[in-house]
């Protein structure tokens, strides 16, 4: 894949000449295609979760897979998340590459113990004798007008747990490639999907299935800038880009970085950008306290101590439970709050 430039804002690399290898897809359809491709190329890849079969999952991300791959490759499981993760671990020990779907991020917690105590530690415990290439797909984030437990952003909890890798996609091209790379990875990967963007037509992008994708654990500079740097992931990338566009109209150039990999962090592009701009704003929907945003800030203040002209600021969800959705427009970081933070940073 060509080095990313401003023209690849949505992660779409230069198009291939062969139109049959290019499909214009939403994020949701891109993940679906990525799953299908992975299942076709390795029959050890199996999909399991609640309602992933006939229904195709409540978001239809696994649509059509059971029909084509059968009930032993796409499992409608009993309703219990510890069971989903715990059996996936055992299947991985047996040599499978299970892809679990958690219906909504708020329902991952019954499986938290298996994730922390087994999935994250088996490889370390056995000094590499057991690999657990399990992918856990987690639709996350808010903005869909839902009831409790359907709009949260728990990714920081997983980033804090050693032994897990955590990624998030923000556009169809990444969605298509990253899910396959996650399945290919010999480590357990938490794969956070921006559910609000699944079927957003305006984010549709041409996905070329023949190019060489960016490595999974690399972040990506989407936009150069001089005034300040914005860093986001998943649904926040769009917010950052919108803010940067708005600022650009006023003549303020903001750099935007899509983190993509939340653990391990690839902050090199962030450091480089901050050294130029002197200012950083992290954007995420998650609560701020003891979060990934704090990790980024801490490492940036350490690496770029003499470059910073203002403290790293965070624009996040508040340190409250996710509120009733009628209030989510206030709760979720938006263009205004990001720009407000930019103002504060510039005025420091």
């Amino acid at each position, binding site marked *: 894949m060509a080095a990313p430039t401003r023209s690849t804002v949505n992660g779409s690399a230069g198009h291939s000449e062969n139109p049959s290898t290019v499909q214009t897809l939403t994020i949701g359809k891109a993940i679906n295609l990525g799953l299908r491709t992975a299942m076709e190329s390795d029959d050890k890849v199996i999909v399991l979760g609640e309602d992933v079969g*006939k229904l195709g999952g409540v978001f239809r991300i696994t649509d059509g897979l059971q029909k084509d791959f059968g009930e032993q490759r796409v499992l409608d*499981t009993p309703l219990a998340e*510890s069971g989903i993760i715990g059996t996936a671990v055992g299947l991985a020990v047996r040599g499978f590459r299970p892809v679990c779907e958690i219906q909504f991020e708020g329902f991952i917690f019954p499986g938290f113990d298996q994730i922390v105590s087994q999935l994250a530690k088996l490889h370390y415990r056995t000094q590499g004798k057991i690999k657990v290439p399990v992918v856990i797909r987690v639709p996350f984030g808010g903005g869909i*007008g839902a009831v409790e437990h359907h709009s949260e952003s728990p990714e920081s909890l997983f980033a804090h747990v050693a032994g897990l890798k955590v990624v998030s996609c923000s556009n169809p091209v990444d969605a298509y490639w990253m899910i396959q790379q996650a399945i290919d990875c010999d480590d357990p990967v938490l794969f956070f999907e921006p559910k609000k963007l699944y079927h957003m037509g305006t984010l549709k992008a041409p996905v070329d299935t023949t190019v060489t994708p960016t490595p999974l654990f690399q972040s990506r500079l989407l936009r150069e800038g001089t005034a300040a740097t914005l860093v986001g992931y998943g649904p926040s990338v769009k917010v950052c880009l919108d803010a940067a566009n708005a600022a650009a109209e*006023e003549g303020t150039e903001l750099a935007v970085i899509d983190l993509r990999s939340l653990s391990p962090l690839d902050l090199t592009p962030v450091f480089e950008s901050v050294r130029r701009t002197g200012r950083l704003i992290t954007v995420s929907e998650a609560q701020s306290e003891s979060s990934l945003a704090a990790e980024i800030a801490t490492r940036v203040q350490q690496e770029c101590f003499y470059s910073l002209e203002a403290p790293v600021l965070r624009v996040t969800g508040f340190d409250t439970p996710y509120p009733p959705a009628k209030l989510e427009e206030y709760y979720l970081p938006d263009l*205004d709050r990001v720009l407000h933070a930019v103002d504060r940073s510039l005025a420091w």
Partner: protein
Amino acid sequence: MSSPEQWAHPEPGDATAATAAKPTPEQVIAGLRATTEGGADLTQLLTPEGERIASPIFDPYVADVDAEALRELYRDMVLVRRADREANAMQRQGQLGIWVPLLGQEAAQIGSGRALRPTDMAFPSYREHGVGYARGVDFRELLGIFRCSDQGGWDFKEHGFHPYTIVIGNQVLNACGYAMGQKFEGKVGNTDGQGNPSETDEATIVYFGDGATSQGDVHEGFVWAAVYDAPLVFFCQNNQWAISEPTERQSRLPLYQRARGYGFPGIRVDGNDVLGCLAVTRWALEVCRNGNGPVLIEAFTYRMDAHTTTDDPTRYRLSDELEAWKLKDPIERVRVHLTRNGGADAAFFAEVDAASDAFAAELRDYCFNMPDPTPERIFANVYAEPSPVLDAQRDEFLAYLEGFDGAEEAGSEAPGVVKAGER
């Protein structure tokens, strides 16, 4: 091998014959979905045809249910169904973010809900609007959750109706703890001095679905309640589906038989029979109040609508199934029974219909006029005691918001690289 019963008992001798003990899909279904009536063990007092079946064991528990009482149960079910349909329609009109319909489960919810004493406590899942109604919660108060204006606003103590719980299974352990508390406070196993059970004894009922039985929390609730003799009725509404998954995905055996492994009674009742649900729940509550520990009730019923308004059941189930269950409608059988036995006349039914229309209209009116919460609500009640960090976050955000108002009011530009609100 006619019944899945055999799996409950070791039959070592069979094992040498390959797959001898392996159920066929038909056997699984025979046990789980059973006959159209729910299998041989089904308790039923009122058939789909409106016939009253005598039950030496359970009749005493509904001896007081005369025609008037039955009319009230009928009214409850009609009102609740009407409200449910109204809410469903309001969701379609964008007035609610989502609705979780109870259609088809009216008898299970009204029968069990009406079995409770005011001092009892009910722990619902998220579909128990009928139980809430029976507990005296204003149906309108249930709407806030689904309008996404609140997360459950009613007074749980006044009504003996705990907030909804959305994470499948969690409430079963919470209910168990509550029931243990009732026991620790000496509220079970008392007599009134004349040797009769005490009027002040209490019990708890907890609602969950067929899918929920797979969750670890439900199991742990069974373990705890059994070990502590907690006065807890486990009320499982087996509506045959957990979103798109039929009960076969959760169990080989009928769900009421789960209780066997823990050592407390498990019973299957026709969940579309309001009288049966009332009787069986009253019995189970009595077992609990008497200090005999938990009881599992499986109410064999059917989810006649989608899982929620966002669900599309045509993707996973056939319409025959729905048609078959329509013949077992919980309301219709009571209407037939009342009519045939002179328990109610046309005027009564007309009156109930009118009342339910009025009820729906009120609901509609309330919903359309429900105020949105204000941003302060985001920060309110995160803690019972103050958190200075959060208070600071709130103050900062509210000041930020005021900046917009000010900017708009004064017509002046908000400071910054882009004007606030300009997007």
